[in-house]
């Protein structure tokens, strides 16, 4: 029973201070990490295998530039067995549908029982990819899970609801996405890092997937970015020092009243 984990390489979220003066994001200058939510997906895949419920391979699938390789190695060092990187210059600027088509075609070529996703990517991700993939492959998808397990030939998980949580379930093969789960992603061990260097990363291009270049990338995108700005920080940032609690409470309450918030 094989598990494929779809992982994206994203700019490090803590590095947002490196915006250029004109407000654009200089991606090249930013360190790249595994999308934090996808790290949880990798962790859960490893745990599912360790539980004995899914003996088999764990394969990472990533669409992105060549530079994603370094990030993929980290996932391999955590314990995944091998990886597939779909990379092609024509993919630059792909929208959700194009990304999902690429992942779906790559999944068709990689026999799997469970395809695990993070629930959202941190670089302007929409949290929509896995349902598009599921629809393209005609599979059920259980999503936004904060617990996941494989029981026999089913995948089951808990998803937050308005009143508590729902237990959701799907027969395998299926798609699933996880949020932050209770299991912190493991740090790669030193032997893990050494082994990862020898693990296989297969690279595929669009032609390998039978997708036309004009259907993806900026050319095929259904949405277009027209501009971007740095939001001006309009906040007053009025700072008071609390000397006497009662006086401070008065000042806060006055402030709230002045804003009609009490």
């Amino acid at each position: 029973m094989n598990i494929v984990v779809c992982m994206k390489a994203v700019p490090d979220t803590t590095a947002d201070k490196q915006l250029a003066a004109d407000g654009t994001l200089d991606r090249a200058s930013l360190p790249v990490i595994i999308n934090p939510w996808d790290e949880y997906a990798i962790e859960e895949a490893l745990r599912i295998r360790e539980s004995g419920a899914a003996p088999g391979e764990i394969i990472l699938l990533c669409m992105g530039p060549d530079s994603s390789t370094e990030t993929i190695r980290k996932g391999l060092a955590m314990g995944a067995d091998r990886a597939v990187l779909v990379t092609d210059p024509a993919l630059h600027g792909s929208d959700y549908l194009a990304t999902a088509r690429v992942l779906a075609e790559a999944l068709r070529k990689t026999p799997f029982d469970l395809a695990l996703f993070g629930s959202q990517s941190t670089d302007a991700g929409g949290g929509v990819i896995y349902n598009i993939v599921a629809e393209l492959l005609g599979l059920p998808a259980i999503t936004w899970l904060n617990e996941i397990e494989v029981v026999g030939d089913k995948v089951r998980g808990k998803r937050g609801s308005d009143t508590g949580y729902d237990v959701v379930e799907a027969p395998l093969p299926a798609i699933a996405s996880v949020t932050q789960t209770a299991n912190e992603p493991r740090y790669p061990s030193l032997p893990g890092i050494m082994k990862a260097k020898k693990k296989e990363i297969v690279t595929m291009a669009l032609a390998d997937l039978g997708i036309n270049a004009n259907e993806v990338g900026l050319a095929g995108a259904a949405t277009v970015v027209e501009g971007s700005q740095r939001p001006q920080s309009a906040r007053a940032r009025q700072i008071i020092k609390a000397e006497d609690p009662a006086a401070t409470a008065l000042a806060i309450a006055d402030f709230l009243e002045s804003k009609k918030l009490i």
Partner: protein
Amino acid sequence: MATNNDVWAVVETDTHGKPKKLGLELASLAVQTAAQYGGQAAAIVFGPREAAETVGQYGPSTVYYCDDPAYKTDIVGPASAVIASLIVQHSPRLVLLPSTSLGKDWAGRLCGKLGLGIEADVIELSMEGGKAKIISPAFNGALRVTSGFTREGEQTGLLLVRPGAGTVRRAEGTSANVQQVSVPAGVKPGQTVVESVAAQGGVPDLAGAQVIVAGGRGLGSADKFSLATDLANLFGGAVGATRAVVDNGWIPYAYQVGQTGKTVRPKLYIAIGISGEIQHKVGMQTSGTIVAINKDPNAPIFQFCDLGVVGDLHQVVPALIEEIKKRKGLA
């Protein structure tokens, strides 16, 4: 296939069968945007007829509703099939969906079925020069991105709209045509719920809350989280928390605000004992007024608050609770 100029809103209902506040915001935003296009607004409500009638009071000319229990057992398959078949029949220009986990699930399925473009995390929508002008935050709010649909007018555009983008506005003297719709036959399983479990004390409606009092590690212990709860109760608001707090088990994960938790936009956000790390900031930075109480004058939260109070929360918050009680005539 060309679209018309209509703008639609998809509305979720709560466990009591009432339209959710975000749904009403979307309906009002659809009415406003449709007027700019010179088209009609419609809503699709998943819930009972009464919910559809309520939504009708906000101005859409048509309200479709589906109360087939199938959409509750399989929360994604039937609902997305209903929306897809209505889109195919009527070709609206834009469809606004709630930017919630379920809204995103539906949007993904619709995109896969019909090949439509999705704009996610929409915080502002208007029509400019005959086209949708859409604003959304990117890279943790470090940028505000303006974007649009490349094939607008040729195919329906889907928008995932965040709380606060629309303002709930009742319409005077309009009446909506309320129509029941059923789930198409032969829907493939999407996401099946086998059991629903109620959490003790329920789950917070962080998206709908006008006031959120969020507690951080600075509270010191699970017991002291009551400071946040007491303050929130005085405002009729909800409590939120940082990851440090939920990781410590002081309060369930459902209360976490931030990158891996909820994105919120209340009128007032009071952060107590929260440092304001970027992963927390991204979940609350578009709140109306932000008040922070922290003993460290260099805490990052002071960089993006309206009022910052440097001091010991264990002294300031109890005093604040007393002061607000006084002003509300409760003490």
